């Protein structure tokens, strides 16, 4: 008896298709109490800067109405809303992938229903500071890959720039469209015990998280519809439109109907949800490296009707994966020959390759000097004070204070490769001391900031948890930079933890910027 097996999807083209691992699903059930309303009576802001309270029982002005409304809800109603919000995100498949976790590839980013509130005044200052910073950083990038005036004028040592892992010498002499290198950035901000804002990190390559800003808002609107009518909250939904405008502006002038694509590493990347979300919101094509070829001097994509020219690439893969013939030779994610086309001005790439140099934590420390040098202004949002381990005097200070400082690898991000002195063992401190001594260029140290806190719904009560903020900024040439109101508030859900990264037990909250 002959059997005809079922025609199966070709494995050769679909190289990323693997049999899926078991995926965690379902939300752990929450037990419901009945009766009591949810009260902040017992909520203690403690010895921290609290975003919603000035003292126990005293909400900040901007948060007063929110607190009142939450307190009018019964416990089970609030918990039900939290659960419904979480369920919605799960059903929407708003998930991220965790590397090295073989339990399953997808998880929902935990979401907390208590929103963060930023007053209109605070926001105005932040917005100004963020615009200032991205403007200076763009000047810096264009300078160091071309004339290097900032080096020649002795502001930043040549050695510091050239030893940064993100510095890409193949980008020397490149003139990207309109002289803009970094179009999209997500700057990490924190507040200390006094409530002072600091810039903790710049993310100039491909910052992620903006999709959560948009989805969190959608969920909050359906969770607390009436609050949105009562409070004057700045809308965030404008982001995809603004981003598309920024990207379209980069197309070569003679192209009348430019083809803009989003280049993603593919469905197994941790930020894949965001890639597909943004492509969908902007109505542009999401491509992977294998969909693109360089042909006849142009970048083209493989369509069912043959090859089709691409004019602007919003890349969501790291600099050194972009073109295996120029950077990392073993990269399967990029497009061989892409850099030649970029150099010839026949395709625009946002952000331009090479922007990662300013993500280096040593370069970060020079941003105040950049602002002074290029803009002749003083920095509006300060940097966190930074010790250079390269400097002998500073290094010995760092080494003798490892138990109180935060040490960071200059080329790492995402909460990896760091030592939080106050929460570390002697053994870990010794390990970092060795690392610093062997590779002083590779490490910087900063004082441990006591991050601000916020009430967060944990085990059916409100508890203070540390947070940070990542606003998203778009930089084009035709108008002033656009800052999406608010940004992604990440919260460290573990008690006392200062690490807010999604891969390490972090969650998120909606961020409400009030119109005054």
């Amino acid at each position, binding site marked *: *008896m*002959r*059997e*005809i*097996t*079922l*025609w*199966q*999807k*070709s494995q050769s*083209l*679909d190289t*990323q*298709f693997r*049999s*899926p691992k078991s*995926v965690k*699903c*379902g939300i752990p059930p929450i037990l419901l109490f009945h009766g009591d309303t949810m009260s902040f009576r017992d909520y203690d802001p403690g010895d921290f800067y609290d975003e919603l309270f000035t003292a126990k029982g005293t909400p900040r002005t901007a948060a007063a109405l929110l607190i009142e409304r939450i307190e009018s809800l019964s416990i089970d109603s609030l918990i039900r809303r939290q659960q419904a919000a979480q369920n919605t995100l799960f*059903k*929407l*498949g708003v998930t991220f992938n965790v590397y090295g976790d073989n339990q399953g590839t997808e998880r929902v980013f935990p979401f907390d229903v208590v929103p963060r509130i930023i007053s209109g005044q605070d926001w105005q200052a932040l917005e100004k500071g963020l615009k200032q910073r991205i403007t200076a950083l763009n000047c810096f990038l264009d300078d160091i890959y071309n004339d290097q005036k900032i080096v020649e004028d002795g502001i930043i040592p040549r050695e510091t720039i050239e030893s940064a892992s993100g510095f890409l010498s193949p980008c020397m002499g490149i003139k990207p469209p309109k002289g803009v290198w970094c179009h999209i950035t997500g700057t990490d901000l924190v507040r200390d015990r006094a409530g002072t804002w600091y810039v903790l990190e710049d993310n100039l390559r491909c910052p992620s998280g903006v999709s959560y800003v948009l989805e969190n808002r959608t969920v909050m609107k359906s969770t607390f519809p009436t609050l949105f009518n009562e409070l004057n909250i700045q809308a965030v939904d404008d982001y995809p439109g603004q981003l598309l405008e920024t990207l379209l502006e980069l197309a070569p002038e003679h192209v009348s109907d430019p083809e803009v694509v*989003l280049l993603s590493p*593919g*469905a197994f990347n941790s930020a*894949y*949800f965001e*890639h*597909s*979300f943004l*492509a*969908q919101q902007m109505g542009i*094509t*999401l*491509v*992977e490296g*294998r*969909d693109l*070829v360089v*042909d*006849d001097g142009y970048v*083209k*994509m*493989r*369509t*069912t*009707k*043959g*090859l089709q020219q691409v004019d602007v690439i919003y890349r969501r893969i790291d600099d050194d994966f972009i073109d295996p013939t120029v950077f990392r030779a073993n990269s399967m994610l990029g497009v061989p020959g892409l850099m030649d086309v970029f150099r010839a001005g026949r395709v625009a790439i946002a952000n331009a390759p090479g922007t990662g140099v300013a993500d280096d934590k040593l370069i970060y420390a020079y941003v105040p000097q950049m602002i002074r040098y290029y803009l002749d202004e003083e920095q509006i949002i300060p940097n966190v004070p930074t010790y250079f381990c390269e400097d002998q005097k500073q290094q010995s200070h760092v080494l003798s204070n490892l138990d109180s400082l935060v040490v960071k690898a200059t080329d790492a991000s995402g909460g990896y490769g760091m030592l939080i002195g106050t929460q570390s063992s002697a053994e870990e401190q010794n390990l970092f001391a060795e690392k610093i001594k062997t590779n002083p260029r590779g490490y910087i140290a900063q004082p441990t900031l006591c991050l601000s806190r916020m009430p967060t719904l944990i085990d059916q009560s409100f508890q203070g948890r540390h947070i940070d903020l990542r606003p998203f900024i778009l930089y084009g040439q035709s108008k002033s930079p656009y800052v999406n109101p608010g940004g992604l508030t990440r919260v460290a859900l573990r008690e006392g933890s200062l690490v807010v990264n999604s891969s390490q037990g972090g969650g998120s909250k909606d961020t409400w910027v009030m119109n005054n």
Partner: protein
Amino acid sequence: MLSRVADSIYWLNRYIERAENVARFVEVNLNLLMDNPVGVAQQWDPLIAVTGDRTLFNERYDQATADRVLDFLTFDTTSPNSIRSCVRAARENARSVRETISSEMWEQVNAFYLQVEDAAKEKDSRDSYAFYSEVKMASHRFAGVMDATLSWTESWHFGQLGRMLERADKTARILDVKYFLLLPTVQEVGTPLDNLQWIALLKSASAYEMYRKTEQMISPAGVAKFLILDGHFPRSIKFCLKWAEDSLSEISGFSGHDPISSQRALGRLRAQMEYTTLDEIFQQGLHEFLDNLQLQLNNVGQCVYTDFIALPETTNDTAMVMGSSMQS
């Protein structure tokens, strides 16, 4: 549209349709078991035969018992055509083209996936009747949501093409179940038991009621004619091929002469359904006819792949390929 995306939408639809039809296979048998007179042995082997995974099944089990076959076809993640594997594959394909399909489609696939994964955890086969009918409904919901929310442009047509080719193949296989089902004795042909088997088969193709309206009396020839040659029943092979052909010509953008390879392969097959007679089918042998049909359907799938998905790397290559096909 991107070749990779076209491929994923095509397979997303094939896998959803496949999951639905595996549920239909299982239902034929569950239906039969309920109607079987006491004393007639349960037959699970035919199900393995028609799904085309016998080799894999035999590697694991020596005998086809109810539990093993049900698990193999339903929840076994190492069996590539189990309902669960199909739904997982559908979801992975959907996930890689989320920006192209509508949010509603994605939500539907995701809900389908969660539903099957939950059922797999509980694994209470006592309630399996409800489960299989839920699988069918989830597939219908997906198809309905796609029709109602996705623009009927190239992506929709790739999806429709995948769904129709898969459905034609599966209707052929459902009809073939009867070939493998044994009657206790040769004398039982045409008896109530024989009729019960044909009725169960019609029911599993959701064809029983529509059949009664057209053919009325149950007969092997009538059932074969209805499921192969009926021009109006949406699961008949002829109907599926007609729709597949329409979508294919929308995709390729021309319907004139000098068709591409997939159009030739599919057109030939569709014409065969159009002009063949039931007598000719029975002369060849129903089982042989269905076997041949499945092989040709596989060939159509292969041609779609070469025509649209596995494209040449550069325009020079394209020109050469186009040039050579013009000459031939």
